[in-house]
């Protein structure tokens, strides 16, 4: 159960980051958002 709660949280944060990525105009912040996104994607896909 804990595992699914964790995955749901990671997915939710990833979604928020994605939304922000497409709205954000500053390229610096966009790069930062993508960097944060990478580990979350790996977590959600249960790779790493």
């Amino acid at each position: 159960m804990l595992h699914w709660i964790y995955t749901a949280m990671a997915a939710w944060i990833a979604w928020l980051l994605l939304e922000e990525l497409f709205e954000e105009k500053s390229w610096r912040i966009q790069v930062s958002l993508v960097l944060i996104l990478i580990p979350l994607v790996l977590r959600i896909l249960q790779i790493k």
Partner: protein
Amino acid sequence: MPLFPIHRIRALLLLAAAAAACLYAGKEFRKMNAPDTILPGQGVSRIRALKDYFPNLEGTRSDSAVYFLESGRPGPTVLVLGGTHPNEPAGFLAAVALVESLRVKAGRLIVVPQACQSGFTCTDPLEGYPQSYSLRSRSRLRTFRFGSRAANPVEDWPDPIIYRHFPSGQQLSGNETRNLNRAYPGKSDGTTTEKTAFAIMKLIRDEKVNLAFDLHEAAPEIPIINAIVTHEKGRELAAGALLGLELENLPYALELSPPNFHGLSHREWGDGTPAIPFLLETTNPVQGRLRGRTGASLAVDGQDRQYRLAQESGRMRITYDAGGEPLARRVGRHLRAIQAVLETYNELHPEGRVELEGIPSYEEIIRNGVGSLLQ
């Protein structure tokens, strides 16, 4: 406003880059699950696995190959365990060298190069360990995983706060739950690590092992380095071996296994089986707290500027040679120490000797490198 303003196109490009990064990182990470290649030499007569002693391990990350080198002539059975701690490569490689190069002329040898197979599938967090290291063997470039001290945390996630050893009830820090060398004699319905320990104990009993070696390494600042730790039963053999090694300018310290510290191979193998256990230690700068950059070259060449400075200053009690502590020296020490114990055993038991062939001398290993021991 256009549907694809410049910042959205940039977002898409960045996402593509992130996907590529995920793909690369994921692939690299998955490589840790690919087994290391061990090429059995002429001396190997059959290969079994830990699951043959404890079927519960079948299909798990903890099952590991067990190599038999049998002479067909009577003599004692010797067990050599490498990779109890996968971040101590000299122990693992010394065992691999035995599998790939050794021939047994009397008695028999059983080798488990990756005792904690699960620990080879990850590295320790925050240590900056290399994922792998490469050596040029007699025929090719060989790459081996550099694992973690303990079994993979995913096995029994999460670790308890306190680890209670079975059956003594001794309490240790929770992360020791995954440390194979705190888990003996193991438990058939315990954690993954306890099950591995249980399988190894069963192997020792079923195969009627007489002498058992557990190969380790430790940080240069640890006092028990270049040491033979043994159970009361092995005192005389270890003392004889130590004198022989000293004559070859390989000084060793002799330490006795504390009877009240449970879970260690040299204690529980000795107490729970007829085998005489020996734990051998060499120095490994990768494990040290003082080390600088921790790359694959540090694992192989053992040269670290910080340790050299510490050694030169003379202010720290460390075991570190000014020329570095290359794997060849550490593997060479392990192999010589095993042979020295067996030579002493032969002196004391002329009726049941174990005779080995195919292991070069310490000087030859230093001269030709550790790769010369591998196919």
